[in-house]
């Protein structure tokens, strides 16, 4: 076969398939969807196609990515309205007959085009006091049993793509809740610490009073979009809600603690002292 024959011909069976990407272009001053039509190439993921738009048609297109392997969590976006990683969504799984919309995460402030400012999540992370480990054993080590860390290991798979934070209607649809609600990724972080065999801090009241676990209505969208398939709701948030019930809503548990003289649950004020804001308030200037 000669080289010329591999070129697509009009009316030929091997005619090159075309796809249209509808990509959101804009910044804080406004934006709109712009259509880009390009050749469909077998085996591509959405991120590949977006990159080809960037190199062939729109060199100023803003898109964030790093690993192209679903591991860095940078390429989060909404593809045909579904929060997804661009690098893990195969073009072949989408309906190519119609334009494919690619838009930025709609819960965070826009920087440019597909790039959003996800610093909300970093601020929330600061609200969670780090592990407060118990004293080392006599030989200077820490020991943990495998069965004690199994649960937490599921949560360590998180790649911090923040798709769960983006889809969660508590802040997506109600901006005013942002200061009062940590979001699924960070409720999971608290659950992980509460299940940590070495940790000594009790964050249960704090989880309700400050991190807002009560806002979650367990409708499970975080679980639905998580690219790591972490059972965020079933294994982290609901167990956390049940722990909160122990210290806040269960009179029998309260009676039990009182009669058996068990330690009181730690107040939120105590936990706040361990956060950056609490620490700076306590440092004499």
């Amino acid at each position, binding site marked *: 076969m000669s080289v010329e024959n591999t070129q697509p011909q009009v009316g030929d069976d091997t005619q090159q398939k075309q796809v249209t990407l509808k990509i959101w272009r804009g910044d804080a001053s406004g934006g709109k969807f712009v259509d880009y039509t390009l050749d469909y190439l077998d085996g591509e993921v959405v991120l590949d196609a977006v990159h080809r738009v960037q190199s062939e048609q729109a060199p100023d297109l803003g898109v964030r990515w790093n690993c192209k392997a679903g591991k860095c969590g940078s390429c989060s976006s909404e593809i045909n309205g579904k929060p997804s990683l661009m690098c893990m969504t195969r073009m072949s799984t989408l309906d190519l007959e119609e334009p494919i919309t690619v838009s930025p995460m709609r819960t965070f402030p826009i920087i440019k085009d597909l790039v959003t400012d996800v610093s909300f999540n970093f601020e929330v992370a600061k609200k969670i006091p780090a592990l407060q480990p118990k004293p080392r054993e006599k030989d200077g080590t820490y020991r943990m049993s495998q069965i004690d860390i199994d649960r937490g290991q599921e949560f360590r798979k998180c790649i911090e793509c923040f798709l769960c934070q983006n889809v969660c209607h508590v802040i997506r649809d109600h*901006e005013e*809740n942002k200061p009062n609600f940590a979001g699924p990724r960070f409720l999971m972080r608290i659950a992980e610490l509460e299940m940590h065999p070495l940790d000594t801090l009790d964050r249960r009241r704090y989880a309700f009073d400050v991190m807002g676990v009560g806002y979650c209505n367990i409708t499970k969208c975080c679980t639905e979009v998580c690219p790591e398939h972490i059972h965020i709701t079933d294994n982290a948030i609901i167990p956390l809600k049940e722990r909160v019930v122990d210290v806040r*809503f269960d009179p029998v548990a309260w009676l039990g603690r009182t009669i058996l003289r068990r330690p009181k649950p730690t107040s939120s004020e105590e936990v706040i002292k361990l956060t950056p804001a609490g620490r700076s308030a306590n440092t004499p200037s």
Partner: protein
Amino acid sequence: MTTLNAEPDTPVPVGIEKNRVRGGPPRSEILRRDKWWAQPLAIFSGLLAFIVYATWAALRNGHFYAGNVGRDYLSPFYSPCLTNSCTSNGYVWGGWTWWRLSPAIPILIFPLSFRLSCYYYRKSYYRSFWLSPPSCAVPDAGSTKAKSPRNKYSGETKFPLIFQNIHRYTWYFAVIFAGILTFDAVAAFRFHNGIGMGLGTLIFVVNALLIWAYTLGCHSCRHLCGGGLRTFSSANSRHFIWKNFVSKLNEHHQLFAWLSLFWIAFADFYTWLVATGAIHDPRFF
């Protein structure tokens, strides 16, 4: 003790920025192209169908016991038997002769509160009845309209939804009811001339099994049996039950929620058919 006030009166330990311009089209523009409405619609119809049937069954106040045709079948809607209407086999429980309304009413309060506060049913009715959210990345009803009363969202932090936190108490009663329905399944083997088994017996045995599978897969049960512990290594048997039994059932909680719901209505309907003489219950031995 427990306060039912969720308003975080504690200071926010890290400042969170609000109200910056977001990317993408307005939230009112639903970009999902799949049939995102199909699941909430199906669940809405399924639950509504059950509500309609259960209302009829509960108000029927008749033909809930098949003793008149020689079968010890008691509809789960009317179990335990509170009045004196289940006496043909000496199957007397209550003696509530003063009770004028349908005996199903005081009974159904317990399973109803259990299922209403169940984490799975909460998800399903928050999505399909309350539309909060109807589906993932689809806005909460009213949240895109500035004037809507549904614009504010407090999740399960305020009255009345904060009472969802009593779920574990409804579970305690649910265990008692599962025991009663197990008794009914055993009683269904009792025929006038000794032990036997009819089609109805089989239906009641399956009913009891499904109720147990649903009740023991409950998230509160999962917490109480061991999930609430920080470390498992010092509680081997609880870990065993948590891991191999309750968590396994919990993974299929949604399935058992639907199967047991359907089957309870079916068991009632079958009892009604047999008791009214509409069909003859085939006897296997």
